[in-house]
């Protein structure tokens, strides 16, 4: 999902510690990593692929469909704009704590260029058995096994637990879409829901939300028309208002962003919302009638 079987992938920031570790994992898993970027190390081979000074140099050398960024917060804006200018159509932005005005800037540029941004502050995307981009444990077969359940999550760690719960019941995952924990992100929960709704390989959808913002409520306006079963867990029922709960987006202001508002909206759209993630796999299984 999003990253296709034949997509050629670039890694911006490939030579850093995390860039190296996760590029190796992605390559082992089957993601077609074709090149990397580091302005200071152009010309070397790293993780078995050529390193270029910019995304534009990389696309001049060979076609690239998607890029994933292992870039520190204040470098993200320039790196994303570089990728957009290089004509890359899909950009996965993992970095947390990118200044929001930088995010708004590159999202405006991406929209104009018809380029899809996932994140920032996402753990990435997994298509089990095929490829992954980001830092998800795709290679852990207890967590990710190919199947028919699509999972959308604002959180990497919780998304991982949810996938494990689904796989535990004997089901598998068609796609994991980490949308990111920031207040302003490129691919929203509603966008991801629409993609999974239209994906022929997905038969049921799990929405992993959390308090803060109105992403779940907006997804719920689309969920009304989805005929595939939707099961959801929303984190933060026990979190007090006015406190930022780790994620920049996870804060309740007044009633806006509250657990109750999200739960009500999703339930009204026909989704089943669970109190704890423990039984989420079983709930999906029951809905699928397996």
């Amino acid at each position, binding site marked *: 999902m999003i990253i296709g079987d034949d997509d050629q992938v670039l890694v911006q920031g490939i030579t850093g510690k995390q860039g190296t570790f996760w590029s190796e994992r992605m390559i082992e898993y089957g993601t077609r990593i074709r090149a990397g970027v580091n302005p200071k190390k152009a010309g070397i081979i790293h993780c078995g692929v050529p390193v270029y000074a910019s995304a534009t140099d990389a696309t001049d050398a060979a076609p690239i469909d998607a890029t994933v960024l292992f870039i520190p917060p204040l470098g993200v804006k320039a790196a994303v704009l570089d990728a957009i200018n290089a004509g890359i159509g899909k950009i996965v932005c993992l970095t947390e704590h990118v200044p929001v005005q930088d995010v708004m800037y590159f999202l405006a540029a991406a929209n104009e260029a018809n380029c899809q941004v996932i994140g920032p502050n996402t753990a990435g995307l997994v298509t089990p058995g095929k490829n992954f981009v980001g830092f998800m444990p795709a290679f852990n077969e207890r967590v990710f096994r190919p199947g028919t359940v699509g999972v959308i*999550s604002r959180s*990497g760690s919780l998304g991982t637990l949810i996938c494990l719960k689904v796989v535990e019941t004997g089901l598998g995952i068609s796609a994991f879409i980490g949308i990111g924990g920031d207040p302003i992100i490129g691919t929203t929960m509603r966008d991801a829901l629409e993609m999974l709704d239209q994906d022929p390989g997905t038969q049921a959808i799990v929405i992993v939300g959390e308090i803060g913002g109105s992403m779940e409520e907006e997804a719920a306006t689309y969920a009304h028309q989805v005929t595939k079963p939707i099961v959801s867990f929303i*984190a933060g*029922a*026990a979190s007090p208002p006015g*406190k930022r709960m*780790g*994620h920049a987006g996870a804060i309740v202001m007044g009633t806006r962003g509250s657990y109750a508002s999200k739960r009500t909206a999703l339930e009204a759209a026909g989704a089943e919302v669970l*109190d704890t993630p*423990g039984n989420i796999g079983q709930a999906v299984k029951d809905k699928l009638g397996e």
Partner: protein
Amino acid sequence: MLFEEYVAKPLLAGAGISVPTSRSVRTADEAADAARDIGPCMIKAQVPTGKRGKAGGIRAVEDSDSARVAAADILGMKIGGHCVETLLVEAQVPIAHELYAAIVNDQKTQGPLLLFSQHGGMDIEDVALAHPNDLLQLPIDIRNGIDRNALELLITPAVPADAVDLLCTTLLNLYEVYTDNDAELVEINPLAITRDSNVVALDCKFTLDDSGIKRQRELSAKGTPEKLTELETQGEALGLRFIEFSGNVGVLANGAGLTMTTMDAIRHYGGEPANFLEIGGEAYTLGQAALELVLSHPNIKALLVNFCGAFARTDVMTEGIIEAWQTLKPKVPVFFTIHGTGETEAIAMVRERLQLEPYDLMDDAVKAAVEAAQ
């Protein structure tokens, strides 16, 4: 990060927006001195919260003696949980109209949004309820800034004709304050049109985007630090997000989503969480410091360690915990549940070095911890 009015207003003035003459003071005598220099003035409590007027934290005074009395009354007052320690003594302004103006980060349009209303002086939530059609909105492409013509068209029907030009300039200046300072929100309420047709900012609310702090060092030093407990301050110094609650089940997890979920599950099974503490992201190597922090919480009767590795490796986090364990020797029962990246090594470590059996199901670990805490 929030900024109090007396720190936020100089940002407006710096961008060319008129603000009344003012002085910030910390004693009643200083307030009296300031009023002697300024003349008829407002005495305004400086606290990082709204509704100061309703709480009695803003008073108009005509001379130095009444300024002293008002200041003595307001200093030490509690407003929204904050004790008033600073006052702003500000010249009174002859108001003809009170307007509202703000620029905020907008989730829906994924860009800055200018908000403007001809009904100022009340909370924007109340404006939105009472006069929804008068709350004007202008989405902005941050790459280009505000288009002056669009702005003029937007506000012209709402304000006196002779004020349009000066208001447009003020709003463009406000946008400059927003972009120059990595604002999440900058609001002027009320924005006054004076009887002599000037446009003056009578208040200012400014919130700095926390992710912008690292490139706004000078500015962020002037912000109001979040009110933290002693343990929360220790956590912050270590780079850990730690929030203290009144419950007795300690929480140590990785990732914001999983940590919130752990708290939710504790409450679901009849317990109360003692804290929020996550060591996810770049902080995942801080297991040792994290354990020390959570064990220092005076209330905790049981500790739940819930790791689910994606980016964060559970073996690295668990190793940190075990190392800290040897020196801290926890007196409360500890319950582990570990999944994801590095789980095989992590679970083996807990078994061998702590002689504990991690729970395969998170719910079982939560139930056991809640029971042990009771």
